[in-house]
């Protein structure tokens, strides 16, 4: 199941790359997937932050929405719940939830809609155990599109909430 979700996320990312201007491509999770080369000695036991594991569900950092909808979709719930669990276990990590919209609406309406998308993820993370001081939700409305064409292939990439962890 996890794999399936990851591949969906990957397909989304690939679709994004295929149809948009290169400069707008969102920074994809860095694919430094290669495990350290098996050395003679056993691998060092430095604890790996699952957030940086590209094979973890936590590598997914966006939730997506139908037009003019702000509730977290069923397909994205496992992702959000996994992040909630991670945040509960790592109380020093903070995440910004950045809501975004497609361009079909006024800028101001979309700012409100993006905020509601971000707040929806925020609420689900809090229910899953994250503390309020780990979470901040903001909106960019339609001001920061990933893709700028006037079509659904583009719009569906722009209707999203990004989970942006503080470094």
């Amino acid at each position, binding site marked *: 199941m996890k794999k399936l979700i990851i591949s969906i996320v990957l397909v989304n990312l690939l679709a994004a790359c295929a149809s948009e201007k290169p400069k707008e491509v969102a920074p994809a999770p860095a694919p430094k997937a290669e495990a350290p080369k098996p050395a003679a000695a056993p691998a060092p036991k430095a604890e790996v932050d699952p957030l940086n594991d590209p094979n973890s569900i936590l590598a997914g950092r966006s939730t997506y929405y139908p037009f003019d909808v702000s509730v977290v979709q069923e397909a994205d719930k496992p992702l959000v719940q996994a992040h909630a669990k991670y945040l509960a276990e790592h109380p020093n990590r903070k995440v910004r939830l950045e809501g975004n919209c497609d361009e079909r609406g*006024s800028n101001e309406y979309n700012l409100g809609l993006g905020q509601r998308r971000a707040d929806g993820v925020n609420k689900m993370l809090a229910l899953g155990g994250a503390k309020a001081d780990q979470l*901040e939700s903001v909106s960019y409305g339609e001001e920061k599109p990933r893709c700028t064409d006037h079509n659904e292939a583009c719009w569906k990439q722009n209707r999203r909430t990004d989970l942006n962890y503080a470094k």
Partner: protein
Amino acid sequence: MRVLQSIVGLLLLVQASMAGAVLSIEIIGAGEHQVPVAIVPFGGDDKLAQSINEVVTGDLQRSGLFRLVDPTGKSPHEPSEVSYPDWQVRGAEALAIGTVAAQPNGRIETRFRLLDVVKQTELTGQAVSASGNQIRAIGHRIADLIYEKLTGDKGVFSTRIAYVNRVGKNFRLIVADSDGYNEQTVLAQNEPIMSPAWSPDGSHLAYVSFETKHAVVYVQSLYTNQRMVLADFRGSNSAPAWSPDGKQLAIVLTRDGSSQIYLIRPDGSGMRRITFSGAIDTEPNFSPDGQYLLFTSDRGGSAQIYRVPVDVGPEQRMTFGEGTNFSPRHSPDGKSFVFAHLNNGGFYVAMQDFQTGQMSLLTEGGWEKKPSFAPNGKLILFASEARDRGILATVSSDGRVKQHMFTQSGDAREPVWGPYP
């Protein structure tokens, strides 16, 4: 865009691309009754750094309400030099003449007269002066006087507009003359800027900036450039709108949940919540008498226009029917409002009469957003798109005359027409 091209094909297209212009301007359509008027270049105009004649004729032409009669071969500057039959033969009904000269102190002084060619009388005459770097302002003032005398409505050529210019990830908040010239950068940064709003006296702009990574409302003086944070609560702070007396602003905050409308004084004090819906309530706009706010809300399931009394009273839904509606703004006379109408994938500039409740579309549809009235109520400025760029556009309130203004680079967004100077 395809729609626009076909309109261009059907209607008269005047292309006025001026050398050194910040914007290039295309005019589509013409007013129902165009007044034929001859503007004789003022005596001394050719000695100025900037031709006043060019500004006056440009303004009148863009309004769509005048037909400019060619003055070639005749150049009277005083009434005594005017031979009325010459102008009657050319079909002019009005004639503007005058002189201009730079004074020893550097000021430019213009004396102009507007003559009725048919009745052979003087309609108006005035001396207009300004400092040497304000020659365009003299031209706009004279165009306003001609417009007012010949149409009966106050001219808006001396007013200013504000908009956001986006080039890649660079955003600039711009204030410019109503013809797009004389642009000044109010704010430049790499984060979005939204929703500029003029104070009623034209001295300040309120706007939304994302420079601290979330939407915050600022108020900035256009004279000193000093600015203050008006609202910076958690979440989004946005959609500033000034009351007609300038004593308060309506803003939208998400600090208590979803987007709701609040009133606040320009110094940030005295905040009071206006809507309590749990829906998205946004884009408040004061009625000219200050009694009501129009706003956008999705409380009924989709975005529509609503109205609420500022003091106390029931909220009222204003728009019905197919599609969704956004960004309402009252007409200066308070009898109607404009808004962006989204239906079948296209955004239109729409207008609705308060009394009849009748909605009419003023444009053919496309990406037409954020309409605002000129202070005389005769023109509506909005954001549009042509040749894959965000542009400024105007449409006359009867829908007959349209104008496209192209900035030099990037997209023009979020335009708003300023008050009378």
